[in-house]
């Protein structure tokens, strides 16, 4: 069988492409309305998340904004975070602050002070990391963990500021969010005892570790690769951002290499991704959550990781991903509350590579 550059690690995407190609929406790219008399438009500050509307939410976020931090990596905001212990415990979105960026982490509080943070606990599935800053007497998030907010409930996403970052409503009740497949960025062919690389995509995980055409991948994450299809199935068990350990044969030499998998949307442009990116960047890690509800709040990736609160100012969850043009995901408070003690204790929930079980075969033939 012949694999292609686009096929590896992106089978689900191919299937989605086929679905998406059938979804008929006219996407306007800076197209424009007739230049007749200027129509009556709603002023921007009256939009749902406009300043005037967010001001109405000010009383709602007075308390929780005290318990929200901006998480900075090398001086740039990468996420928001929720203070979950008055002696300096901060929960945030892991993939925004570690791994990909790997710089010095600081938390900036609402009072403007900023404090060096270290990573303590980690949960791969939920994409959460527990940070510790050396400050005491902090306000902590008050959780609404008895029940999830119902569809249509108004929500405010807190920042360490007077007004909420943005507001929205619950769109979809909690469910499991499927994961995106990681993307290695090679095309391959079958050879005896491995997958022969026939193409390497620029700026992919494969190109960054120097894989070249002619290399043969013979083992991945401890699994022998007798033929190309097995390689593809193995890659599909990993997510964007995961590190894929592999053994490679080049000529007479064998060596080990670790490739960090990319996201298919960086490499395989399609209509779904195009449409979903209309309106802003999406989170790099935006799938594979065991439990999340969706809300329509328009967030940037660096505005995830902090508390999202109901009209009583109680946190109903942690924003965990900007998923698409219509949705942001939040992990319900009930789930969060059950994790806090373990994550403070320094536990690291690193899911095994085969955590995701068998994956369905592709629904459409591979490209090329």
């Amino acid at each position, binding site marked *: 069988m012949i694999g292609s550059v686009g096929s590896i690690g992106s089978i689900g995407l191919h299937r989605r492409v086929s*679905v*998406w190609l*059938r*979804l*008929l*929406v*006219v*996407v*306007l*790219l*800076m*197209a*424009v*309305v*007739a*230049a007749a008399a200027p*129509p*009556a*438009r*709603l002023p*921007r500050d*009256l*939009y*749902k*998340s406009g300043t*005037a*509307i967010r*001001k*109405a*939410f000010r*009383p*709602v976020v007075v308390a929780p904004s005290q318990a929200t931090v901006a998480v900075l990596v090398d001086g740039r905001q990468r996420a928001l975070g929720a203070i979950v212990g008055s002696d300096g415990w901060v929960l945030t979105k892991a993939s925004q602050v570690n791994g990909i960026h790997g710089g010095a982490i600081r938390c900036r509080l609402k009072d403007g002070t900023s404090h060096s943070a270290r990573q303590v606990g980690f949960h791969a599935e939920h994409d959460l990391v527990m940070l510790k800053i050396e400050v005491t007497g902090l306000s902590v998030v008050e959780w609404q963990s008895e029940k999830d907010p*119902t*569809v*249509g*409930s*108004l929500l405010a996403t807190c920042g360490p500021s007077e007004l909420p970052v943005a507001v*929205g*409503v*619950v*769109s*979809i*009740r909690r*469910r499991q969010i499927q994961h995106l497949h990681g993307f290695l960025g090679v095309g391959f062919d079958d050879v005896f005892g491995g997958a022969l690389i026939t193409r390497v995509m620029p700026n992919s995980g494969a190109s960054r570790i120097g894989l070249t055409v002619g290399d043969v991948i013979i083992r991945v994450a401890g699994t022998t690769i007798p033929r190309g299809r097995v390689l593809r199935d193995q890659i599909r068990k990993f997510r964007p951002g995961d590190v894929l350990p592999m053994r490679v044969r080049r000529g007479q030499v064998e060596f080990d290499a670790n490739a960090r998998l990319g996201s298919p949307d960086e490499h395989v442009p399609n209509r*779904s991704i195009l*449409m*979903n*990116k*209309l*309106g*802003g*960047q999406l989170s790099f890690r935006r799938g594979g959550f065991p439990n999340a509800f*969706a809300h*329509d709040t*328009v967030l940037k990736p660096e505005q995830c990781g902090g508390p999202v609160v109901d*009209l009583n100012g109680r946190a109903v969850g942690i924003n965990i991903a900007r998923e*698409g*043009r*219509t*949705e942001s995901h939040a992990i319900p408070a009930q789930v969060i509350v059950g994790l806090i003690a373990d994550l403070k204790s320094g536990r690291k929930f690193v899911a095994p590579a085969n955590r995701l079980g068998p994956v369905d075969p592709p629904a459409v033939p591979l490209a090329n």
Partner: protein
Amino acid sequence: MARPMQPAALTRSVPRGVADLLAIQTRVGELVEDLSKATVGLRIGNGAGSGVIVSADGYVLSAAHVTGTPNRRVSVMLSDGRILPGHTLGLNRELDASVLKIDVKGPFPFRRLARPKDVRTGDWCLALGHPGGYQSKRAPVVRLGRVIRTESGFLQTDCTLVGGDSGGPLFDLSGNVIGIHSRIGPPTSWNFHVPIRAYTESWVKFVDGVAFGRRNRVRQPVLGINGVDHDLGCTVTAVSPNLPAARAGVRSGDVIVKVDGRGFEGFDSLFNHVQNKKPGDKLRLSIQRNGKAVEITVTLAGGRGP
């Protein structure tokens, strides 16, 4: 006749604090279940989209680009899991409006149409539909927003839409249908809906299965970028391949500070400037790129408007 009576909290241009927000939330909560029941997923040939049932005997509103020509077979997916056969009726290509009928005896859960004149800029509204396509285990997805613009040919809201929503309903806070999802543009506030008058004014034609209206062929000026507001103008966040901006060398990350030698405030302002041009016109962009000043002249292309 006056508009349907609404509590003041639902009609104020700015909510007066948390009490008004609670009133909005309560109303939305009261409506959501019934609105979901009337919202359907559609599968037509290889196409998919959304729709809304507007009569007990199973008339469904959708968008012309979803349903296509009259007399096509349709699968109608109800929120209770039933998948029912139906067929397409008439369509208005110009306004992107269409109607279909479920071929099974009702009664079905439905929502009424609002009176067109009751739809006003600033109204709170709810968008339901099946973004990404119908999923049997996911109820219609709910989004709240406001009517940003009411035109004879379309409504604009900040209820975010995406592929699969097309044909789905926009409701007012009385639970009546005020529009049908049609198209989107780059900013999250560019969500365009077929206005309800498109259906009410030509209802008989739709029911008779008439295909009418011409797709708007007027070419509108196209630049081909997406952007966000910046203190100095706007930051380019995406450049569409093969459109004028890309061809002229505009790059993602560029900060556009002047257009035709004049400063402007934010992406919308740039948009309005482009709007007043014609395809073929030239646009001079003053750009800051990595601290350097760059001047780029772009020749606008032509495309289809909302």
